[in-house]
């Protein structure tokens, strides 16, 4: 009978860790029991339950962030086998082993796989990625949006501010103030809205500031990396057209 017993299947992980924001990164290897249909998050949970390295020595549990577990919140974005993506939708069965996990180090690393994506939200504030409808009286219903326009605008609204496009972009780095692809696409979304359009110039001018849309170098990694399939390069080119027109309009009418 002994011949039929097989070694329990395991999954190997190599995880880039860091204890404090200013500390040097190091890697640790883990080998955890395989379970069917596991994803990277459930593997990290297993390491959390039993923080033992592949060589049998104990370590601190690996720290990560996650929330929705269905690829709509963006919290668990990390670099998995070299590509930035969400850990919740990274199925172990579809990954080459050993599975390498790293933080998206384009952003400040807080600890292990946890990063600070504050610049994403600062960027949305900078480009005014909202529809201003507050007033002192009821403004009534806004203008209607054409169905044909709503359909492509809906695709842009899928952005979850996850930061994958910034991690993939060669022009988002500490020598460059480029705002990144995501907020440019949000400008297109809110400028397409019939009420948002009334403040279109404010969003365009925010992108014609230092570190704005001019920082795009057309590597187009963003559109290849976006987990939601948002046509980021189409948005960037469309906003390039709008900012160019706005530039000439300002020159010729002021």
């Amino acid at each position, binding site marked *: 009978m002994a011949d039929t017993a097989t070694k329990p299947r395991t999954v190997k992980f190599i995880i880039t860790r860091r204890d404090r924001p200013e500390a040097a990164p190091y890697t640790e290897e883990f080998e955890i029991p395989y379970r069917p249909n596991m994803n990277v998050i459930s593997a990290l949970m297993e390491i959390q339950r039993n923080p033992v390295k592949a060589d049998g020595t104990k370590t601190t549990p690996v720290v990560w962030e996650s929330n929705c577990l269905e690829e709509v919140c963006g919290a668990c974005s990390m670099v998995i086998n*070299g590509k930035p993506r969400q850990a919740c939708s990274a199925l172990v069965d579809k990954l080459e082993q050993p599975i390498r996990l790293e933080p998206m180090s384009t952003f400040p690393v807080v600890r292990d796989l946890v990063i600070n994506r504050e610049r994403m939200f600062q960027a949305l504030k900078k480009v005014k990625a909202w529809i201003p409808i507050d007033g002192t009286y009821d403004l009534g219903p806004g203008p209607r949006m054409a169905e044909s326009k709503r359909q492509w605008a809906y695709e842009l609204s899928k952005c979850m501010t996850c930061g994958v496009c910034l991690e993939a972009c060669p022009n988002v780095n500490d020598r460059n103030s480029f705002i990144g692809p995501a907020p440019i696409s949000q400008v297109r979304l809110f400028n397409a809205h019939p009420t948002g359009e009334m403040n279109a110039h404010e969003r365009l001018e925010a992108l014609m500031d230092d570190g704005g849309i001019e920082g795009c170098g057309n590597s*187009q990694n963003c559109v290849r990396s976006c987990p939601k399939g948002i046509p980021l390069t189409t948005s960037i080119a469309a906003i390039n*057209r709008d900012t160019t027109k706005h530039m000439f309009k300002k020159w010729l009418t002021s």
Partner: protein
Amino acid sequence: MSGNSYLPRKLHSLLGVIPLGLFFIEHALTNYSAFEGGLEGFNRSVNFLHQLPLVFFLELILIWLPILFHGVYGLYIAYQSNLNTGRFQYGRNWAFALQRISGVITFIFVIWHVWETRIQVALGNTTYEELGAHMHEIFTNPAYIVIYVIGVIAASFHFANGLWAFLVSWGITIGPRAQRVSSNICMGIFVIVAVLFLLSLVAFSGDEFASAAAAAGSASIG
């Protein structure tokens, strides 16, 4: 760099096509006249150009100042970029990296090339009439041939791929299909312009320009 970077970046993009791209095509055609029309054809093209009215100001405003701005600002743009083709091996990302690499190569090559040709004419070491012979003398050194081949291929790629990026940056080609078609057209332009320059290198190092160089050499001795 502090302040607004939108306008200088936009100007950099514009100057790359107008006037520099147009001058680059003109340069390719002038050189190609050496292959098509031999020494006589080349001299005719050179004569036409340097007899243009206000030629000094045309050169200054349409070539030298734009190259200086495009080159120096381009070095700054290259410095601001990470090359991540190791992690993202997509065609466009390679083009992004090559655009920066070819730009740096082209800028260095152009400075050296202008020193070798236009500045030597300005210093009186050679004349427009002797340029064909002068080019042949440069090409008697195999190292210079290699440098010129690398230089013209880098410059041709930088121009053609830059034209593609110009169309995106000015919001002319927006959708993925338009950008794919313009990419194919621009790569066609890259091949055509590079071949024109390479054929002119063949002509300059050929027999006809050799005898011109010999004649020029004996004339200067005599």
